[in-house]
């Protein structure tokens, strides 16, 4: 007779892996068929009164039925839930109450395990949330403890390293113009521990950047592209505010801290998980970068206003940048989209008191000519 196995039978006469067997439950007891073994000596059906039951298996979720005397003990392990339910319904309660107790213990262990996992996942989540929301506060606290002299040393060494490899303008109308702009901006900054040092570097890059401690670099590319001194002054004002708000230092602390925290928790995973860690870190630092840029934009605008430099130049510059932005995605970039920046600045400008701008003493066209820009013939 071939049987459809639904349980594994163990005992001295069976192999250690157990023999596949078929267990049938009836109102009188259970019937066991093991392929290749003779039926029970005491008839095919074993009455419930001869059985002992317990729970077994890795997670104690299997029904273990046992009867007979050594060495002919038979111990089928049942894991089919339908069969277990049938057994519990058919067997007298005094037989199954041990098993019921064991089943309750299994359920309890399962709840305990779920709760344990819940606590672990929950506390990790809470920690991540805390770091996400509280990180600005923590970083600000750490940054406020770093003396300005350290920041200046840090910025200066990076600045000198950078300039050593660059072609800086020593003097001339362009440098004089940048110095005039800086002078007008910094004279409006009170109670600043920084002395600003600005260098104009020959390069076609349309950009400028600030290092911690008051070191600012302006590329001639930016000055060639700008249509007025006010546009360059707008960018300078933005960079000066990066320095004043210690954004560089902030960013260093945040990136290092974030790296440390993430590494402590996830270690140095390989493959896909490692890639996810890297991308995650990248996205967080980018988001952080955008927040800084927006802050520097707004405070930069206020500084321009105080220095009586026409803020329209800054807005105009971003509008012209936005023409190149097409197809860029804001959340994948450190800088906010230029269109959005220009809009934000326009909104901010409305709320500021009106001032009458005072023009610069230089002629912007002449400055650009000194940088090699061909004068455009105006009709």
């Amino acid at each position, binding site marked *: 007779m071939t049987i459809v196995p*639904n349980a594994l039978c163990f005992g001295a006469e069976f192999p*250690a892996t157990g023999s596949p067997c078929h267990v049938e439950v009836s109102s009188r007891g259970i019937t066991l068929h093991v392929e290749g073994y003779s039926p029970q000596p005491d008839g095919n059906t074993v009455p419930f009164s001869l059985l002992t039951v317990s729970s077994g298996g890795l997670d104690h979720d299997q029904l273990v039925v046992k009867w007979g005397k050594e060495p002919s003990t038979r111990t089928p392990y049942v894991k089919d839930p339908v069969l277990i339910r049938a057994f519990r319904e058919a067997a007298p309660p005094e037989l199954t109450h041990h098993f019921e107790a064991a089943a309750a213990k299994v359920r309890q262990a399962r709840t305990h395990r779920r709760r344990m996992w819940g606590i672990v996942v929950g506390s990790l989540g809470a920690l991540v949330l805390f770091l996400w929301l509280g990180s600005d506060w923590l970083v600000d606290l750490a940054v406020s403890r770093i003396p300005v002299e350290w920041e200046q040393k840090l910025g200066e060494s990076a600045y000198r390293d950078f300039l050593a490899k660059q072609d800086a303008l020593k003097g001339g109308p362009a440098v004089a113009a940048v110095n005039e702009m800086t002078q007008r901006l910094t004279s409006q900054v009170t109670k600043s521990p920084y002395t600003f040092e600005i260098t104009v570097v020959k390069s076609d890059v349309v950009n400028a950047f600030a290092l911690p401690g008051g070191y600012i670099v302006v590329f001639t590319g930016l000055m060639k592209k700008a249509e007025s001194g006010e546009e360059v002054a707008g960018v300078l004002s933005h960079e000066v505010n990066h320095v004043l708000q210690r954004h560089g230092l902030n960013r260093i602390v945040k990136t290092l801290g974030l790296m440390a925290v993430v590494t402590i928790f996830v270690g140095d995973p390989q493959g896909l998980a490692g890639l996810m860690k890297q991308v995650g870190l990248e996205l967080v630092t980018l988001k952080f970068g955008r927040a800084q840029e927006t802050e520097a934009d707004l405070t930069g605008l206020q500084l321009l206003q105080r220095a009586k430099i026409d803020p329209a130049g800054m807005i105009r510059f971003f509008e012209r940048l936005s023409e190149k932005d097409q197809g860029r995605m804001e959340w994948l970039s450190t800088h906010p989209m230029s269109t959005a920046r220009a809009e934000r600045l326009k909104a901010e400008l409305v709320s500021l008191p009106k001032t009458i701008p005072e023009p610069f003493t230089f002629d912007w066209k002449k400055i650009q000519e000194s940088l090699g820009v061909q004068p455009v013939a105006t009709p």
Partner: protein
Amino acid sequence: MKSEILYPGAFPMVRVELGAGEHIKAESGAMVSASPTIDIESKMEGGFLGALSRKLLTGEKFFFQTLKANRGAGEVLLAPTVPGEIVVLELDGVNEYLVQKDGFLAGAETVKIESQMQSFTRGLLGGEGFFILKISGTGPLILNSFGAIHKVELKPEQEYIVDNSHLVAWSSTTSYNIERAASGWVASFTSGEGFVCRFRGPGVVYIQSRNPGSFGAWIRQFIPVSE
């Protein structure tokens, strides 16, 4: 489907003979050679999410390869990555094995593979991680080990202690607890065993004669450090 272990010992291969239309699934990269009648497909066992969870949770490969004898009978040679023995188990639909993540080499198409979450202590201290493979179904299941495979047969209620990183597979009728190897914490670690698993029968436990983690630590000292 017939299987035969070639070159038993440290560097074995398994030859699987597939009848026309038969399939076998294997760990990706396990195939050594095959008859021209065999087609290789890669498959995300258990669907995309199943495969993803297996990859992220157990560290098993994302794809399994399926070898199909589409155009007639043929043979396939399979080999594991690490040196060590291969064992073929026959699943009958009732028995079920729990396999540590690197132990699976191949199985018949009718063999079912799931990742199973372990209890917190077992996952943390058991040495196999929080997720292991639960393999059931019918047909041959081919496992591989690091070093030789030793089979321990446990009678009902019989207990046996195994160092946690020497486990390959165990039947689901056995249960185990994690314990310190020695009675004190310090002695547990200075004895070099740390934690051990106390198994309780009935069932079988397959253990490997070498510990991959210790071997990795040993070999690391000979790898030149690049600056």
